């Protein structure tokens, strides 16, 4: 069964990327795969925006990158979370939790009234 795919809300791609990278050093292709898998295929990463996002985060110093041997034996560019990235991730997830909680609350309340 394929569930309907959702577009990523604006600005959440960075957070998802940071979260995935936080688990372990990982390369671009795997990040895309991982997000897709974890979200049970709901979230489709637009390929056109993954790499600009990775490079933006790298430029901001939230991610660090280095070339390493991958699981298939070939070299790949692995991204790691920096300390600055960890702080940023914490902020963004907290933020997101607050926001989504609030939204859920509103939706539930209005449903109840209807």
């Amino acid at each position, binding site marked *: 069964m394929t569930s309907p795919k959702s577009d990523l809300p604006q600005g959440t791609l960075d957070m998802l990327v940071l979260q995935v990278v936080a688990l372990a050093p990982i390369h671009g*292709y795997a990040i895309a795969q991982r997000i897709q898998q974890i979200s049970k295929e709901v979230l489709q990463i637009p*390929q056109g925006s993954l790499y600009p996002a990775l490079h933006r985060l790298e*430029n901001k110093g939230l991610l660090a990158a280095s070339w390493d041997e991958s699981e*298939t034996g070939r070299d790949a560019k692995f991204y790691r979370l920096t300390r600055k990235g960890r702080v940023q991730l914490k902020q963004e997830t907290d933020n997101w939790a607050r926001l989504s909680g609030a939204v859920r609350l509103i939706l539930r309340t209005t449903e109840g009234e209807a």
Partner: protein
Amino acid sequence: MGGRPDREHDLDKELRDHLDRLTADYVKGGLDEREARRRAMLEFGGIEQIKEGSRDVRPLHWLDVLAGDVRYALRACCRCPGFALSAIVTLALGIGGSTAVFTLVSATRTAMLPFADPDRLVQLSGTVMRAQLERRFASYPDFLDWRAQATSFTDMAAFDQQRLTLTGFAEPERIVVEFVSAPYFSLLGVAPMQGRTFQQDEDVVSNPSAVIVISDGLWRRRFGADPRIVGRTIALTGGPFKTYVVVGVMPPGFRGLTDGAELWVPFLQWAPAGIMTDRNQRWFAVLARLKPGVSVGGAQAEMTAIGARLEQAYPASNVKRGVEVTTIDRELLGRVRPVLFTLLGAVVLVLLIACANVANLLIARSQARRRELAVRRALGASAGRLLAQLMAETCVLSAAGALAGVALARLAVGLVVGYGPVPFPSYFAPDIDRRVAAFAVAVTLASGVLVSLLPWLQTRVATLLPSLKESARGATDRGKGLRHAVIVAEVSLAVVLLVGAGLLIKSVRNTIAMNPGFDYTGVLTLAVSVPRVEGASRPAVEGRVLLERVRAVPGVVAAGLGSDIPLDGNAVGVFYAVEGEPSTIDPQRRPRAYQHRVSPDFFKALRIPIVRGRAFTQADQVPASTSVIVSEALAARFGPGQDPIGRRLKFGALNSTNPWLSIVGVVGDVSYRRLPRNPDGDPDLYTPFLDRNSQVALAIRTAVPPASVASAVREAVRATDSSIAIYGLAPMTEMVAQQTSRIRFVTWSMGVFAAVALLLALVGLYGVLAYLVAQRTREIGVRLALGARSAAVVALVVRQSAAVVVVGLAIGLAGAAALTRAIEGMLFGLTRLDPGTFAGVGLIFVAAAIAASYVPARRATRIDPIVALRED
């Protein structure tokens, strides 16, 4: 930035890795290699866009883009060196010309004056209402009243200037001396380099101290930079004392308000006491500094009120007299500034034409590059990126043009200052400084934007898809309208400049052709100062002796001597009264004339015609003489048919004790004080020259070129007495040239600008026509193949040319009719709408248009139909 190739490689490798993994996953899913790659590529999307997206987030990425654009632009320029070169030369002319003129303008701004806060300095001058308001300087009692009553100024100083002879050295020297009140130096904000300036008690009439301040130049030249100069004495002739004590030396570069002064003396020390209490003796100007917060208008209002009070209190001397307050920069730079602003306006027109020309070149080229641009657009370049690229290209061109232009400007400014006919002040130091550099950069950027905007507009208008499909053959004429509009603008701007230059050239011709009332060709002029012998009633050298010596010089035909000669600026105005006419003190009706004391041969030497009666004779040259000669304009007051000979007049008022003088002759009117016309209508009168003057001017008519006898004349004068100082020894044509220097400078510059403008407009026109023929080669070939005659083909080209020129001409002539107002004040002997000039410019452009269309038209008739039809 530094790791650019690395980062590019990195990015490339990373994206390839991603694609490979995606492909590998599809292969694992059961697809064959090729299909897997295809699917992967589809899914991944445009690699180049992803790359571009990843690059965009890099810091300072825009610099990379810019560098790329510039590199691309340089490559594009190198591909078409002819195009690039003509664009650069054109822009260099426009940018260089405007930078050069701006350099001059910038050097004449108020802040460049070598005084402290020059914008707060003003000059106060007396005025009198006659036929028009005329400036008449101040009398000393008036000055004292102004100073006592005015509250608008921090201080006031009287100042006057004169040439005096410095003696006590091997060779006497004429130097400019300023007579100044004590506050003069502090008003200008200049402190002495050594010693002191004048003190308040030296501003009092009875003060007998003979003190002077000298310039740095004089100190070095005449005193060998003597460190103990303060306290030394100097000998000067013409003043009340024999020797003067130096109390101070001014800093280098300070030359006073006259910009030539080398010596300063206290104002009151020199004047005879009587003159200082006479309200009718007006001869000096007043320097003042506005108090903070007081405007020129406010000061003027106050001085007008003071003038009115003085008029009431002293009607006999001050009726219809007022005060004029003018800023010092207007006094010192007011004559040169309007000239430069006019030229700046003109050169901006040249710059616009240059931009239009380059824009047209670019439009023609972008027409040829339409496919390239369309391809780039289709590959994902946004309209903004295309504009940026076009701009980079034009900016590369205009930057190259600017570099060449600034070099050109340097050269031009040097030429103008070194060899130009306009005498610029000594502190005038035009330099390509930061202001000028900023101007040049602004002009360059502006022209770059202007030049690239037009082609860009055109690419925007043109839909891109069709141009991908169509071949060059079917190229539409979308750019035509735009290019024609640009050419029309160019032609009309060039017409404006040509009309301006034409009017000025004609005006200079009129000025030169004008008969000034005397013949200045073949005349050598000089001035001498004759030292007085202490205690003697007569000067050491008599004028008569001097003239005899000069007349003996081979080549000299006649020699005249006078208190002043035409155009030397030393004419003195006097009031006079005519026997039988009612007396009046109203300056509007009171007769005034300029008095010249002259020797018998004066009129002969200058070829001033004797209209009636006779010239002076040797018998007239005695103090008891009552002979006077008047100009025709003065004789006219006796009415037509009335014989002026024998009529009597006297200087001053009717009831004065001055003797009656009888008119013995009438001479022609002379432009004595300014060319082409005297600044006011007051006539001239001549009295016999007596050996009273210590300063005299000579006019020597020669049978050979005047310059060739100059040294012989100098020797002859020096032989009479070695203490005579000689100055201003030059052919009289030089005086005339100086009189016309400003208008000749403007005319010459305008002429150059107009010529450049005409040339650029023609090149532009030629370019458009040549392009038209090239574009329609096929069509013309078909026509010729179908039997069209050459005449019809020529007509095709000429029609285009005529349409553009006629419209441009009409707009240009209308514009010129409005814009020539700017030079109206410089015109002489013609109106600013002179029909001859306008018609002439029209003819020039028609002829030029024919010339510009000749080659393209000829080329059109030579088109070989077969070749044209085969051509893609």
